């Protein structure tokens, strides 16, 4: 089954930021916004929930620390005792660097894997990009047409996009569904964007 998205293409991040606010003020929620670089304030403007990726990072990091400390304690003081520089077998100060490294390793690998899974990335299939120009210099706002299937809504959104500065508005069919973002429970307070 094909998935249809209404796509608005913008040329400038400030215009995009204002457009996001404007569209949400009219009561429409975009499915996703794609930008070639991180745009400050975009998450707030879209009403996105705060990411939980850092919590995952902390949990993986803690697992890494515990793993390192248990493994070293077992190896150095039970399994294979070696005298190093006359120090005790259980030498806590020496475990610091390895615990630190494993904390970082577990946290970063764990976060990467979770991030990939959550976003539906896979090595088994090619990524399907909504509009290739988002990897270059265009900013794209996408609406899910499963959510807005009424003709009146589509006309209204198209109008809003054009009016807020979109260069181009079109409908795109995708093989795969775009992963949905989590929106704040209250829909997020609509933030007036900053004028740089």
């Amino acid at each position, binding site marked *: 089954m094909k998935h249809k998205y209404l796509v608005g293409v913008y040329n400038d991040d400030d215009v995009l930021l204002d457009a996001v606010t404007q569209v949400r003020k009219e009561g429409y929620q975009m499915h996703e916004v794609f930008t070639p670089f991180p745009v*400050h*304030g975009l998450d707030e403007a879209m009403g996105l929930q*705060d990411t939980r990726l*850092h919590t995952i990072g*902390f949990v993986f990091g803690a697992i890494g620390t515990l793993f390192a400390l248990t493994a070293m304690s077992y190896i150095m003081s039970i399994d294979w005792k070696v005298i190093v*520089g*006359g*120090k005790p077998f259980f030498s806590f*100060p*020496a475990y*610091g660097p390895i615990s630190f490294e494993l904390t970082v390793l577990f946290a970063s690998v764990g976060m990467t894997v979770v991030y990939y899974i959550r976003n539906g990335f896979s090595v088994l299939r090619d990524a399907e990009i909504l509009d290739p120009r988002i990897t270059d210099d265009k900013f794209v706002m996408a609406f899910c047409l499963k959510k807005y299937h009424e003709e009146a809504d589509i006309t209204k959104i198209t109008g809003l996009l054009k009016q807020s500065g979109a260069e181009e508005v079109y409908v795109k069919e995708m093989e795969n569904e775009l992963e949905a973002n989590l929106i704040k429970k209250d829909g997020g307070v609509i933030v007036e964007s*900053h*004028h*740089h």
Partner: protein
Amino acid sequence: MSTANNTFTIPGKARNFSFILLIAGIVLAAIGAAMNLDNPTRLWTGLLYNNIFFLMLGLVAALFLSAHIVGYGGWVTLFRRVPEAMMLYVPVGGILMLLILYFGLHHIYHWSDPELYNPNGPHYDAILDGKRAFLNPGFFFIRALSYILIWSGLIWLLRRNSIQSDLNPSQGVQLYQSSKYIAAIFIVVYAVTSSTSSWDWIMSIQPHWYSTLFGWYNFISMFVTCNAVMMLILIFLTRNGYLQGITNEHFHDLGKFMFGFSVAWAYLFYSQFMLIWYANIPEETMYFKYRIDNYPLLMWLCVVLNFVTPFFLLITRNAKRDNSRRIMIAAAIIIIFGHWLDFYQMTMPGALANMAHGAAEETHGHHEVVRIGLYEIGLLLAYAGLFTYIFLYNLSRQSLISVNHPFLKESRVYHT
């Protein structure tokens, strides 16, 4: 931003608070001193480390400012008058420092005893004789005087440029450009003198001992304290209706600094500790050995207060952006107190041991007790009061916002 809010008048409560701190501190310290007149080393060392703590706090505020000037750090512009007012404590703290060093030299510093350099005398110390070219009272005072003069001079220049830009709306950019040179010189000067001054004033209390990263350790310690103090000041100012342009974004970033530099402190603590522990060379290990044997609680409490607590308190995003700022205030107070304890820990044990036994490494099996009493607490309060008053006074002398600074708008629309 209304212009009315651009002038800071010292709130009566804050003025009284600083006076009460100062007076109560002096009274407590006087009582504490009267009870310990038989121990002049403790009295002078107490003055020394409290004075260093607040002097360095002012100095590192100048570094904070300089680093942001040189690095085009625009986000601080709204509240740059805060570190500016803090750094103006340096001349005051500097004069007190010279007085304490002059009158307390023989009570604090074991190496100042001329008997140690008499090759035929019973107290001859070959190691200290070898260090004599650097560690002698004459050169020691020349260094102390030049640090304070150079620091105060550069701080005066930074402040002058800042004031000039208020008076000349058209010269904001030129004055910023010339501040960059002053700030760059200050950073280089600070890089060298923060190390040498902490060798002189703190490390030389145990003159046999040395650690090459001692200066960095002190610098990070003060930098994180300075961030915590600025955090408290900004919360105070915004709650009193000043600096309304300061948003969660600014608090969030200052909070990240507090978190990040607490971790950096732990990194340096561990680097110093672990390398000394691993190499196991007597003249290096004696510093930690003496503290672990005699002051274990104090030593590990510093690690808990300065690393473990701020780490878990400040790790979440909400802790840094929460509008009640409860966690932030708690973390800031813990950090300030923790680093103050750390300065006690760096100075007092060594000084007391040296004066009692000749040298710290000769005190095996002798157990000291942590002596933080009325005297030390009193000094902390007195210095805090003095610092607060001088800060408030300097903050009220100029407009609260550097209105012609080229990065002011960047600071207002700041977003992390």
